[in-house]
């Protein structure tokens, strides 16, 4: 009786809610999504290949450009991988400062996620509130290393700079501010009826399936898998600190939201402990003048704000560039889940789910 047509629409690469240049081809029945196809590659810059032509020290700066909202985490992952390859000892003070930087970075990245995620669902004020706090972190980073987005903040074997005087007091003050502001975000969203209706039961993914798809980070923990590399395979100075790994239970958008909100609080907890126990000493280990790791390969992963950020590096031991450089970006692997998550949901949920898996296209495409 009725002639039903499927509608194919192109979301992106120029669309306000695809967080960059993601393109999603949606097959719709009315507003219901039958199939979603993710098309990536619009921001591909050949970073992996590029890194095979830069010497080891220069690569730190290129890693900044992958997940550009969490540049310090990328630096940390790369530096630790090379240190592992070379069996370098990093002085404890450097480890602590690295941890502080990585956690500040996690907060900044989560601020950006929260703002854009809420904006996608229509709560535009949270966006500006979250950016206000992110701004404070950028100021802290600026004071530490002079840059606000791509920090180039770490060196193989340690850090290029010690923290400036009174910087630790400012970080502490920021942690106090953030704790009250997180309550403010929660007041606007957590118990908001519309927010609950928009996020509960949307994009549910079970623990087994989440693992099979390769989700990591908050997206995986939202599905009740207590996997956090900071806890399971401690790197930097994480082994010294007490912190909880928040997990969800239903594996829906709301749980992923709650997990990240709780991570704000855990991050400030870690930062405070790190500032309290900050050891004295050098900030750069005994690093040879010419960095040339012995022949071999290694994989090392850290818990970036978005999930498991792994580096696989092969050195041939002869040249001063990596023989093979490969990144396991959390955004790319998490994005795999999108077609599965949006199936059967409405167009409005697609943007909510893109926000909920927290991707950065610079990292997806590299």
């Amino acid at each position: 009786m009725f002639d039903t047509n499927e509608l194919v629409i192109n979301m992106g690469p120029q669309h306000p809610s695809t967080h960059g240049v993601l393109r999603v081809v949606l097959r719709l029945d009315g507003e219901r999504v039958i199939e979603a196809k993710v098309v990536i590659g619009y921001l591909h810059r050949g970073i992996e290949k590029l890194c095979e032509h830069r010497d080891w020290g220069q690569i730190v700066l290129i890693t900044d450009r992958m997940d550009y909202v969490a540049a310090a985490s990328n630096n940390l992952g790369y530096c630790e991988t090379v240190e592992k390859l070379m069996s370098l000892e990093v002085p404890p003070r450097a480890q602590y400062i690295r941890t502080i930087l990585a956690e500040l970075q996690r907060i900044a990245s989560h601020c950006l996620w929260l703002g854009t995620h809420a904006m996608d669902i229509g709560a535009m004020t949270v966006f500006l509130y979250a950016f206000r706090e992110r701004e404070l972190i950028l100021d802290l980073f600026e004071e530490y290393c002079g840059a606000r987005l791509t920090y180039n903040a770490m060196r193989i074997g340690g850090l290029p700079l010690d923290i400036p005087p009174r910087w630790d007091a400012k970080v502490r003050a920021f942690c106090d501010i953030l704790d009250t502001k997180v309550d403010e975000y929660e007041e606007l969203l957590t118990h908001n009826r519309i927010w609950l209706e928009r996020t509960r039961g949307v994009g549910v993914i079970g623990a087994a399936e989440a693992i099979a798809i390769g989700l990591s980070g908050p997206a995986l923990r939202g599905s009740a898998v207590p996997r956090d590399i900071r806890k399971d395979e401690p790197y930097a100075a994480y082994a010294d600190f007490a912190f909880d790994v928040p997990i969800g239970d239903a594996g829906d958008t709301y749980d992923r939201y709650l997990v990240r909100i709780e991570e704000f609080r855990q991050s400030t907890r870690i930062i405070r402990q790190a500032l309290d126990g900050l050891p004295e000493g050098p900030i750069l280990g005994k690093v040879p003048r010419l960095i040339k790791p012995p022949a071999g390969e290694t994989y090392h992963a850290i818990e970036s704000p978005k999930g498991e950020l792994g580096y696989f590096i092969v050195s041939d031991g002869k040249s001063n560039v990596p023989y093979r450089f490969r990144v396991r970006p959390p955004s790319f692997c998490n994005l795999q889940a999108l077609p599965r998550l949006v199936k059967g949901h409405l167009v409005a949920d697609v943007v909510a789910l893109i926000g909920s898996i927290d991707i950065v296209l610079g990292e997806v495409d590299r």
Partner: protein
Amino acid sequence: MVETYLVPLLKIAVLLNAVLVAVTYMVLLERKVIAWVQVRLGPMRVGPYGVLQPIADALKLMLKEDITPARADRFVFTLAPIVSMVPALIAFAVIPFDDEVTLFGYKLSLVVADVNVGLLYVVATTSISVYGIILAGYASNSKFPLLAGLRASAQLISYEVAVTMMLVSIVVTAGTLSMVGIVKAQLDAHLWFVFIQPVAFVILFIGGLAETNRAPFDLPEAEQELTGGFHTEYSGMRFALFFLAEYANMIVVSAVATTLFFGGWLRPFPNVAPLAFLDLVPGWIWFLMKTFVFLYIFIWIRATLPRYRYDQLMRLGWKVLIPLAIANLVVSGILKVLL
């Protein structure tokens, strides 16, 4: 001659201009209030504190290239913004701003037309507005506007019923359809109708948000989902007309809510003699102040709440508001007969 033609024409001219200016300044007010909520300053560059911003915006929009997409239905594409704008403006005709005032020794009622079916007229005109959106969605011949048009029609059906039912409740209480009559009925009842019909007010307000496509029901133009929705393909003055229509509709809904539930031009406690000094403020000022409060709430809601999803909005309309509206109407009818 003067009585029948000149005075109404003058009234219309003044009202139209006043409404258009109010609408453009509503845009500025919204930007300012939302900016303050979001710890920003809002427009500050054009004129002191940005007060000339609406003029700059209007100029910009007029000078913009007016694009009609190649495969659009040209006639309907041009018609849609007009269909959206005109009903929003003519709805003001029956809204009483004040009782009769004496101006230069001439008695003047501050309403363009006190028709005896004023409320029905408001319902009729405001529901036409949404056709503009549906037509725009269809005529653009583009996918995102089409989805927006579908959403708009679903939204209209879901909310129109409940809102109209609530207006009937008011008619039952007041015993008249005339807008002026309803205000006078509140004077006679010694009570604003919001205290007699609180449920009706809540439903009307929610319905009003939905009918004017305001947050949290701004689905047809959900920027994050539909990249602007029905006005994606519009530019220049035609886009401006949609924009103005939305704000004009907000003012209409606020003015109607003020008239029906908050005593229109009446001062607070109109029958309490010790408060007579409040009469020093003219009635139309009271009216505007009350309307302004509603407009502020509209903006406040937009700054605070996330957006409903299309199916949730329908559920709220059909499963909550309409049954509640019917119950309210039946109860008011029974009480009216009994008391």
